[in-house]
């Protein structure tokens, strides 16, 4: 494959088309007779002009310049890049799911409503919560939704002093960002030497101004916050609530439930734990579950079951309102529902058991070659530090780029921020032992190269269509669209 690929605009030729529209079957009128002339476009938008085969070749070529889970191992920590089942894709495209309108009369969408209702129930059971809204479009939107409910809860009690949301220093960036957008001040609490929330430090920051604590459990180091009950008590006694960031829920299905840990609100990423595809960045879906205390504040509508069938209920007088148009990312809900029906209760438990076993196996096998900052049992993911290799002049970024030469997507790097030269590795349960062993071999080879021929790593990648790209210039002199030259 050549390094550069022509843009679709560069292969455009006037007169070619890739569409087929019917002739008008109603009397045609001049546009200017139907609409004011001054509201009409004077120059057409410069969209490409290509034939259908040109189009297909262009996008096929682009797809070949892209790495997905179907192409190879993708141990991207905190992103749960597991297999995206094909049947889910088929089902989501059934006309009965894909070709229905959000405002159709309820009696004409009973199947869709039943699916949503059952999914609400299933996710509530899986998380140990009382009610679930399927409306949020993604994890970050789920976080914001949860925080807005927490805000409404405190305000409903006349408690307006609670302006702070506590987040651990290992938290995802969305946590503090969501806190800000919800009108709170984010306060950081440090992790202790074991990589867990420092309970003593937490006690110091918790107070009458605490609205909530946001926590990922297992956390972004892949460690279970074993003091969670005590943490929950501390926050609750101070009058705050607990938010569960469900990004790492793949570790605990059927093994432990946020609701039982003491959390009041939880979001799930259906595009992580429940196999809906990441799509190159989205769409995702971020349902939110709550305990009874927060039910009155849920965004509306919710799906309920009545004598005459399923219906949308708007009867939540204290609702925070709407967070997303229509009924959430329904197409993603269909996929997640299909997955849950594929796996059942034992299957989901086995998912987490295998994910955790895979992660611990990898960690154990890589321990002789890389620094393991937290050598205790991990959950579905773990972190390595590239400190050993850094001393040899090889950075974690270099090792990540070297992995590309082996058709392996690198782990998440330089996150969480509290680990130097961090690599966060999440194998997931859908990878075979052979794949894990291959990854181990490649990582060991890279560790040896760091000692013997560091330039091989520093100059990587060697086999990708382009070499390392100049991101600094891209940001300094942004070119964010094509211009007719």
């Amino acid at each position, binding site marked *: 494959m050549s390094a*550069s*690929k022509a843009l679709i605009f560069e292969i455009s030729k006037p007169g070619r088309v*890739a569409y*087929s529209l019917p002739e008008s079957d109603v009397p045609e*009128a001049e546009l200017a007779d*139907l609409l*004011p002339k001054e*509201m009409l*476009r004077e120059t057409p*938008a410069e*969209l490409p002009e290509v034939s*259908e085969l040109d189009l297909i070749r262009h*996008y096929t070529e682009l797809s070949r*310049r*892209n*790495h997905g*889970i179907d192409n190879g191992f993708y141990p991207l920590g905190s992103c749960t*890049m597991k297999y995206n089942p094909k049947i889910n*894709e088929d089902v*989501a495209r*059934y*006309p009965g799911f894909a070709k*229905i*309108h959000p405002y159709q*009369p309820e009696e*004409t969408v*009973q*199947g869709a409503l039943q699916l949503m209702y*059952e999914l609400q*129930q*299933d996710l509530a059971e899986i998380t140990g919560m009382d009610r679930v809204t399927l409306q949020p*479009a*993604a994890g970050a*939107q789920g976080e914001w939704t949860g925080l807005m409910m927490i805000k409404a809860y405190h305000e409903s009690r006349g408690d307006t002093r609670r302006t702070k949301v506590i987040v651990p220093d290992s938290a995802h*960036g969305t946590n503090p960002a969501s806190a800000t*957008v919800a*009108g709170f001040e984010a306060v950081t609490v440090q992790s202790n030497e074991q990589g867990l929330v420092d309970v003593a430090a937490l006690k110091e920051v918790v107070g009458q101004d605490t609205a909530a604590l946001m926590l990922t459990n297992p956390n972004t180091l892949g460690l279970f916050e074993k003091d969670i009950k005590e943490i929950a008590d501390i926050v609750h006694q101070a009058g705050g609530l607990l938010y569960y960031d469900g990004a790492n829920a793949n570790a605990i299905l059927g093994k432990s*439930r946020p609701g039982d840990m003491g959390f009041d609100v939880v979001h799930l990423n259906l*595009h992580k734990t429940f196999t809906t*595809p990441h799509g190159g*960045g*989205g769409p995702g879906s971020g349902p939110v579950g709550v305990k009874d205390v927060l039910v009155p504040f849920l965004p509306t509508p919710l799906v309920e079951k009545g004598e005459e069938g399923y219906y949308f209920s708007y009867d939540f007088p204290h609702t925070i309102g709407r967070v*997303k*148009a*229509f009924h959430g990312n*329904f*197409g993603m809900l269909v996929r997640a529902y299909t997955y849950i029906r*594929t*796996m059942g209760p*034992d*299957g989901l438990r086995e*998912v987490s058991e295998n994910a955790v076993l895979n992660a611990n196996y990898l960690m*154990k096998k890589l321990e002789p070659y890389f620094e393991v900052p937290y050598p205790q049992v991990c959950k579905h993911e773990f972190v390595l530090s590239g400190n050993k290799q850094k001393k040899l002049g090889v950075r974690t970024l270099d090792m990540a780029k070297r992995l590309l030469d082996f058709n392996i*997507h690198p782990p998440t790097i330089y996150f969480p921020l509290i680990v130097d030269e961090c690599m966060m590795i999440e194998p997931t349960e859908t990878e075979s032992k052979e794949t894990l062993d291959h990854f181990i071999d490649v990582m060991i080879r890279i560790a040896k190269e760091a000692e013997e021929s560091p330039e091989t790593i520093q100059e990587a990648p060697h086999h*990708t*269509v*382009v*070499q390392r*790209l100049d991101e600094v210039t891209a940001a300094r002199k942004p070119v*964010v669209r094509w211009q007719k030259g």
Partner: protein
Amino acid sequence: MKFRYLPMTEEDRQEMLSVLGIEDVDALFSDIPENIRFQGRLQIPEPMAEPQLVRHMNRLAGKNLSFDQAVSFLGAGAYEHYIPSVVHHVISRSEFYTAYTPYQPEISQGELQAIFEFQTMICELTGMEVANSSMYDGPTALSEAAGVAAAASGKKKILISQAVHPEARAILATQAKGLGLKVVEIPHAEGVTDLGQLSAQSDEETAAVIVQSPNFFGNLEDLAAIEPIAHKHKGKMVVSTNPLALGILKPPGEYGADIVVGDAQPMGISTQFGGPHCGFFAVTKKLMRKVPGRIVGQTVDEKGNRGFVLTLQAREQHIRREKATSNICSNQALNALAAAVYMTALGKQGIQEVAKLNVNKAHYAQQRLIRIPGVEPLFAKPFFNEFALRLPRPAAEVKKALLERNIIGGYDLGRDYPELKGAVLLAVTEVRTKEEIEELAGVLEGLA
């Protein structure tokens, strides 16, 4: 039971356990305190084998009335349009749909280039200089636009027309509580924003004026008259629009809009009961560094070859954390890809042709329907592919009569506008035929 997504054999398990020096996988969960370890079995339905599951899902889907079975005149923010076959073929390539966000550009050039092309096409349609890689949907993009306007202007007052989609206004109301924005709704008059009221409310405190065109009623707003009101006190002009309509309409950028948002759903994305759709967000160069979400930029590699990367990331939450311009993380990349394929398929000619067909058919339908006694146009403004009618009978009764003929009627405007009780909003796109319009007319005539 063996699960087809779980490759671990008993032999694998034993080997791995022995490497770890443990006997049972439960040892790996011993860090979860006993009192919060889940002891039971999740109370969810038992698993289904694939053939059984296919039947089950087909039955569920079969309980919904799809566009393949009924004739729909619903719009109100989600539209049935022609989707070229190529769209689904391209987005079904799993190199695209099973990939994560392109943070490793060397193995993500396909996605990055496709989004760069998407950004360019959105700029072309909207007449703006910069577009991001997409947002959750049009209505949330509108809320984010209010946030950007407030951050850029240092002001908190947002004026939004009541002719903007009611759900978009509802989301903005929720968002405003978090951001501390003061939202003032401007009434509509004769189907468009009341410019007198807008002008009266616009003052030194105004961060943004937000309108939608074509608006919720399908009518075109007088953007030329709105621009000076928005800018008089250095507020931002935010326009929400339908990108398909921009095939023929003068783009908001040419009127001087600062931020243009909307939903790309009409361009190659199935309605899917309301989502996922695909918000877009376009701005002037001046606002480029305030834009929420991901942006793809062009650059070169070490050998000087053209390539693409995610850029201007210093705005985003994973770098800026609590100081980020937005908390948005994911986008709707796959749907942006669908929209890009659609815009490529339709191209320079097709996008005009399809927009014209919409105008033509919608106007024909409106003229046809208002000949029926008791059916009256609610407004007399220029419109794109939607229009509001007052009906001879209550909306619920009409809905029922239409459903009996397998017609899904319009949107009951009384839901959101008490003053418009008894009126419906009908969408007529290029997929509706003259015959179907006649059938709708026939039922309404029967009720008159």
